[in-house]
């Protein structure tokens, strides 16, 4: 009897799930509308807005810019975050707690405040509307997550495992290749996937520091939604959601999503 769930309770949960997924599910039928504005159900169906999306130079340019930035940010996040996490986990030094808190503190700052603060510095450094500026700004969002994930990953690999391999005659390079890297792989993949998604989706901070010639895809979509109400955004959204689902699916198959972001 206890722990059993009544039918009304199950129905309530189903309704909440419907509410939670409604805005993501609704864009799929709307993206096949041929109408000039948002009506539901659409009066005519077709692929008009998919065609319009691929010939919209703003979206295509922004997609290229966003991908370039997201890939660069992912590589640099790992390059900066992994050594820092390693040092914090494996080395003893003065102010270790302070360094960790400082490196993960940007998580706690509201992005609207962080965006303004970065704008105020970048406007002086002439970094507004540049790749360098956007990449640095995205790094401050992604690296705290990389450090947190890698701290957990390093804690699952006690130094004694590597020591055991060394004692059994493995050369340092072999230890890294056969022991350290394989055991770290889930952490690397999780950090890389999360960095990519965070950078690719980042909108608030990007809104503050993009320039007229260098706009990321979320900024382009935000401006488009704010000024136009036609189903093209639905087509763009479907493509984005499909790409995200693909990434989630791959991670879930290789690692288990709950283990990756449930930490």
């Amino acid at each position, binding site marked *: 009897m206890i722990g059993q769930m009544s039918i009304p309770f199950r129905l309530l949960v189903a309704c909440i799930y419907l509410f939670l997924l409604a805005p993501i599910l*609704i864009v799929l039928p709307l993206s096949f509308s041929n109408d000039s504005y*948002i009506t539901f159900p659409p009066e005519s169906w077709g692929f008009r807005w998919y065609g319009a999306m691929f010939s919209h130079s703003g979206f295509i340019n922004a997609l290229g810019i966003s991908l370039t930035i997201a890939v660069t940010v992912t590589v640099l996040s790992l390059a900066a975050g992994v050594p820092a996490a390693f040092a914090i986990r494996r080395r003893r030094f003065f102010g270790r707690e302070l360094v960790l808190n400082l490196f993960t503190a940007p998580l706690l700052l509201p992005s609207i405040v962080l965006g303004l603060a970065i704008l105020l510095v970048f406007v002086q450094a002439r970094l507004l509307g540049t790749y360098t500026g956007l990449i640095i700004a995205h790094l401050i969002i992604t690296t705290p997550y990389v450090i947190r994930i890698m701290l957990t990953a390093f804690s699952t690999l006690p130094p004694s495992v590597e020591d055991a391999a060394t004692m059994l005659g493995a050369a340092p390079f072999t230890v890294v290749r056969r022991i350290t890297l394989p055991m770290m792989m889930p952490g690397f993949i999780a950090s890389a996937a999360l960095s990519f998604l965070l950078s690719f989706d980042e909108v608030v901070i990007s809104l503050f520091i993009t320039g007229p010639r260098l706009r990321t895809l979320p900024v382009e*979509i935000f401006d488009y*939604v704010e000024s136009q109400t036609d189903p093209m955004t639905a087509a763009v959204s479907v493509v984005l959601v499909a790409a995200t689902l693909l990434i989630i699916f791959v991670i879930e198959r290789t690692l288990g999503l709950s283990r990756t972001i449930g930490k």
Partner: protein
Amino acid sequence: MAAIISPIAIADAPTRRKTFPFLLIALLLPMAVINFIAFILPVIRLGMISFIESRSGGVLTNNYTLENYANFFTDSFSFELVANSLLLGFGVTLITLCCAYPIALFLHRVSPKWRNMLFVITVSPLLVSSVVRTYGWMVILGDQGVVNGILMSSGVIDSPLRLTNNTLGVFIGMVEVLIPYMALSLIAGFGRLENVYEEAAASLGANSWTRFRRVILPLTAPGIALGCLLCFVLSISSFITPKLLGGGRVFLLATEIYDQAVIQLEWPTAAAISVIVLIIFGLALAVYSRVVKRFD
């Protein structure tokens, strides 16, 4: 995405390894540079600019003044902004809790076979851009959207209900955006809930409502506190959903920061409002830590 608030244990670093300072510095340097350029320096500059006297047109002077704060506290519009933000924060947090709690309870009780898949479904909206999700709500709630379409074609109403470009629309959109965060926090706190406690209460004659109120709720209270803190903090600082679903008619602290900084170019004013948002954050954290202390 925003903060995952939970402490990290780092106390188990080995002592026997010799530390070469230059290697340590090399390991930490890239991260330190990023942190300095994009966090420490900006936060210091934000604080300084909030005290700088501005001339019209966004020209900054070298004079320090309290004027930006004085203007804020003497303007009745500022009080409207603070009141709107706080009301929205509390209201959205409460409704989000009511929506996420059944989900968390369900996930806690459902068989492990379903739990993983449903957990992924619960958190997957986090990976969809908030712009896309907000656009989805504009489609559902708009004048010619799904809800109005169904109600008008079935003859319930003659003219569309106004569900967007007002506080109601912002409210609905924010609750949906925040449910995954709340659910994650609640699930993290549900570990202490075990069936044996409920069975004990039931055998002592407690009905299901009493069991919920006296057993389930107190055991899950730490998760509730964490989720409420997270949602309150996120709703105070959220900007995309209020901007798009509010249609420029819902005035909040976060939207005002953006308008002042990007449209009016009044950076000192925007910086001062940011500092006030940070103070509200600090207060929320203080309340949270006092509440959490009472659980132990």
